[in-house]
């Protein structure tokens, strides 16, 4: 990954952060809002894991451990928010 690619990733991360904040400021709440925020967090986390932590070019097992952590945490949070509001 080169400097230009890193800059693209950084810009996407910034844009997704503004998207989450903007939706929250617009007063959205409920299951669809939770799903959008969780998906946004997953994409942001995956980009940090793959491109900033450079795990995409590391042995697969290390990348999977961190991605699995992110997925489990976000899935459990989503399930709890979907079940109890």
């Amino acid at each position, binding site marked *: 990954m080169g400097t230009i690619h890193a800059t693209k990733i950084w810009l996407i991360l*910034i844009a997704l952060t*503004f998207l989450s904040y903007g939706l929250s400021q617009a007063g959205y709440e409920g299951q669809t809002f939770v799903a959008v925020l969780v998906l946004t967090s997953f994409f942001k986390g995956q980009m940090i894991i793959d491109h900033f932590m*450079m795990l995409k070019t590391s042995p697969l097992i290390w990348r999977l451990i961190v991605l699995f952590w992110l997925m489990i945490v976000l899935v459990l*949070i989503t399930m709890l928010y979907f079940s109890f509001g």
Partner: protein
Amino acid sequence: MSPNPQYHVKVLPGDFAIWMFIFAELLVFGVLFITYAVVRSNHVELFNESQLILAKELGLLNTLVLITSSYFVVLAVYAIQRNDSKRCVFWLNAGIITGFIFVLTKSYEFYEKTAQGISLSTNSFYTFYLSMTFFHYMHVILGLIILIAVMLKAKRGGYSLEDHVGVETGASYWHMVDLVWIVLFPLVYLIR
């Protein structure tokens, strides 16, 4: 001619020990996040009401600052991979300065909440908000200490194209701090 095999060997960036530390930290933060969601499920109204008092714009600022800091540290790693120590020091300094902006903003947020009479015992939302964000804040401070140590060594010419494990180790820890905040920010400040 076959390409240099060195560039095709997949290796973990930085020291192996830091990754054991990172996994342990992720496990602790993961348990905290899920516990927050479990406790919230029993006090949904209280959590939603208390969340409204948080300074979302400061949370947004800190997210932008931490992402940017992580990006600067990535550029520092690229610089040393090109054997450019001077640029590596420059980007590490940029990462450290933005990291300090996070610490200052978060310190102000803690001060503001304390001035409003909010403490760990105010209610269960604030117990989690204060303990999780303070725990993360301590990690940011540790990350900054590591980055400063790496920057000082880089300034003395201690890293090169052949030997820059220290830069990658410090960077990996710093990105972990960023990754944790990527989940913490929406969980505590936004999702309702």
